[in-house]
């Protein structure tokens, strides 16, 4: 099931989704990329330093070009990252996406990896072998009689509030994507949005649906 049905979901703020629909030429980009590799390196936040370091440890000079997502069996992703789940068309990313068994921060921290270390074997997979990565991580939680939705709940676990508690398989997509790469758009449930965010979300979902995209 994972091999056949799983894909990558990126969860983003409603305003970004709306912007992508307004201008199909716009690209979605991540934090490192948007603040730039050198001149625009922001903040003295420890976490940020860590993130940059984590990116460097995992991806070397490509860190600035990585977009983060989550492996999912459905249209849902991690609600702690935005207001709208966007599942990407596999054909647009399968040749440039790899997977890590958990959040990269946690992974680097739990494995005590520092710059220059070799990465431990058995925790990453390319697109073709993502189901094996799932099996190696979650085998002890799988049992006979479980449904697809049970598996989804095991694959992505989040309380919707605290990212620290998220458990998922992290997808690393090399370089940007635009609106044409998005297969479905689904609103995150249980979010408290302000008026502007609510409007952006409704526009994004409505427009995406009007253009033939899949929504719930």
């Amino acid at each position, binding site marked *: 099931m994972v091999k056949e049905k799983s894909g990558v979901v990126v969860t983003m703020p409603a305003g970004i989704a709306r*912007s992508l629909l307004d201008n199909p030429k716009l690209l979605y980009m991540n*934090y490192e990329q948007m603040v730039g590799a050198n001149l625009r390196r922001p903040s003295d936040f420890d976490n940020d330093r860590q993130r940059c370091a984590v990116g460097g440890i995992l991806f070397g000079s490509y860190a600035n070009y990585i977009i983060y997502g989550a492996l999912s069996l459905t249209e849902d992703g991690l609600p702690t990252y*935005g207001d709208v789940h966007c599942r990407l068309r596999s054909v647009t990313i399968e040749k440039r996406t790899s997977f890590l068994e958990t959040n990269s921060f946690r992974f680097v921290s739990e494995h005590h990896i520092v710059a220059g270390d070799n990465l431990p074997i058995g925790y990453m997979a390319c697109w073709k072998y993502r189901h094996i990565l799932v099996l190696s991580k979650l085998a002890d939680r799988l049992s006979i009689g479980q449904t697809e939705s049970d598996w989804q709940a095991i694959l992505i676990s989040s309380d919707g509030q605290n990212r620290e508690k998220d458990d998922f398989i992290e997808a690393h997509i090399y370089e940007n994507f635009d609106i044409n790469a998005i297969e479905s758009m689904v609103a995150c449930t249980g979010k408290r949005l302000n008026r502007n965010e609510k*409007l952006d979300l409704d*526009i994004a979902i*409505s427009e995406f649906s009007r253009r033939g995209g899949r929504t719930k």
Partner: protein
Amino acid sequence: MIGISSSSAGVLLLPKSGTGEYAVLDVVGGEEQDSIEAKYLYSTAQDWEEIEGTDADALLEIATREYWLARTVSLLRLAIGGLENPLEKRVLEHVEEILCSRVSSERVLDRLLIAPLADPRSPLMLAKSALSYGFSAVASIIEELVDMQPLLRRLTEIWLGLLSPDSHDYSDSKEKIWVTAVDKCGIKQLLIARNKHEFIKVWNRLVFHHFANPQSRSGVNALGRDISQQLFPHKEQKEIIADTMLEVGEPVRRHEKERVISDYEAFTRVEKQITAILQAVSEGRDGKAKKFIRELIQQQTSLSDGESYAVKSLCNIAKQCADMFRMDFEAVCLNEALKLQRYDPWMLIQYGDHLKRVGNYEEALHYFNQAEKYGEREVAKSSEADVYSQQSDYAKAILTYEAIPNFRDKPKILNAIADNLRKMGRMVEAQDAYQKLIDSAQHGLPEFADSAVRAQSGVAEIAKRAGRLEEALKSYQRILEQEADDRDKLFYKLGLCNVLKLMDRFKEAYAIVDEVIQNYPFAMEPRFIRGSILGLIGRELEGLKDLPESSGSLSWREWLRPYYRGLLLLKLERYGDAKRNLVEELSKAIVSGEEKAILRMAAALYFLKEGETSEADGILSTIPNLYDCHTQYLSLVLKLHSATRREDLAVMDSLKKQIAALNIAYTGLEKAVIALGERNFSLALNYETDALLKLAA
């Protein structure tokens, strides 16, 4: 201080002193973001921008303004693309709120003008929806966006045609120059530039403020000159024609006949081509129109005696371009025609006539002199007199007409003399002159038959000016029964329409002008009149659609556009836009005689509405006594308005006596006088605005 902002992420990165690092601020709330939250920021690409400000507060203000601007533009673009109904209303409501408090409509419009719309009329339904919800700021932007489409298309076509890689040495990409122009320079200002000088002034501002590199500046400067040259080709006409005259000794190249085609086939094909050319010109697709013209010339000149057909077609197109007030394209057509018939005196006269209408009087006279040399003395002289008439030198015009040999036997000249007498206010002499023409026709003099109708319209105009509106109305109705020529009928119908407007019979006036527009879809003057009628019946926003922003070059009679547009905008309380149309356009307009006085009154009305009495007085003091009783009545009322605001009792008393002495019934303005007596200035202004809308030369 330099910061970095992203509108899509809604953040500002502020440098922290001494650390080389940045803090992340939320531009909506202005708060520094939580460190954990900040690292999960996402944005769309291409919207990161370095901004400069004196301190952190200034940077935040700039970033916030930019955020709301980008948000508004994005929402409007989505709404223009089409949203579901309930969502559309929410979006428009949100945009209306932003426009009322956070961003300037002008800047939003500039950003929306980044490229022509695929369907230039498509947003009109959205404007209607916005109005039905009461979101007038949104409706206004959308309508302006639609108005600007032909101008924008024209500019973009020129732009795309100019920017071949080897035409200039640009160190910046053409995309960057265009985006900078849209973002920073105010594309609308470029579009509405009325002449080369205005265009270059706006363009230079762009170059100076946004291109630091000298090589870039020089390249972008040259680009601006090239564009302005194509937008405003008039100054160069002499050179072009001189070049063509030098080539007189060369044999005329004839295209080989492609195939033998029937006259009927050729005629219908040309008709379709002309319609396609005019359609393209009306939409601002000049490149396409020029391509069609080249094809038309090639096809027609391949036929036997083809040059003369091609010249006729080009002159026909030129005439209709003039009706659209697209004088630049009229020049393009006439230049092509001159290339085909270089020494034809009729061509020279037509060209001179074009120069006269764009206010280039010296050049016009030069061409009429040339035409006279080539044998068309009478028409050339008559055209020369027309120049003086347009310059308000009616006496000189009459002398010039009278210098034409045997002018007394030439009804067209006699009509022209009578017209000039009327414009001078010598109504009795004018009436006599017209009457003699009518009598001659009635006595069966064949050469006078054609001119009798025109003379009757002169009589109708005299009646109108004297306030005898019923008489004027009947005259025009009679004329329309007699006149067979459709083109002449157009003018008489407009004359009738203007009389009906003065009689407050707006419904009939509307029906007539609307029919004219159906028959002459490319003529702009009837649209201007329809716009004024819509303003008089409280449908100002609809009226504005008939009164688009400037089409570029100035020309004779085109003053009606900013005049009526400004009055409608005044009624809609869009004072900034009204001022641009009524005050700033005043000095540029090509007008003469009483038309100038009407324009001045409209500018004075603007200042009265804004409570700037001294400015209004300054303008009103330049208005002399006028021969048209309605215009005179209004000028006295406006002067009374100003005097009443100043509480200048002596002047008020004198003006009231002058108004009473006019001895004509003019309900609207009588009410204005009563309102002024009650110091109800706002009511008086309403009547005065309507009175100006009813006036048309």
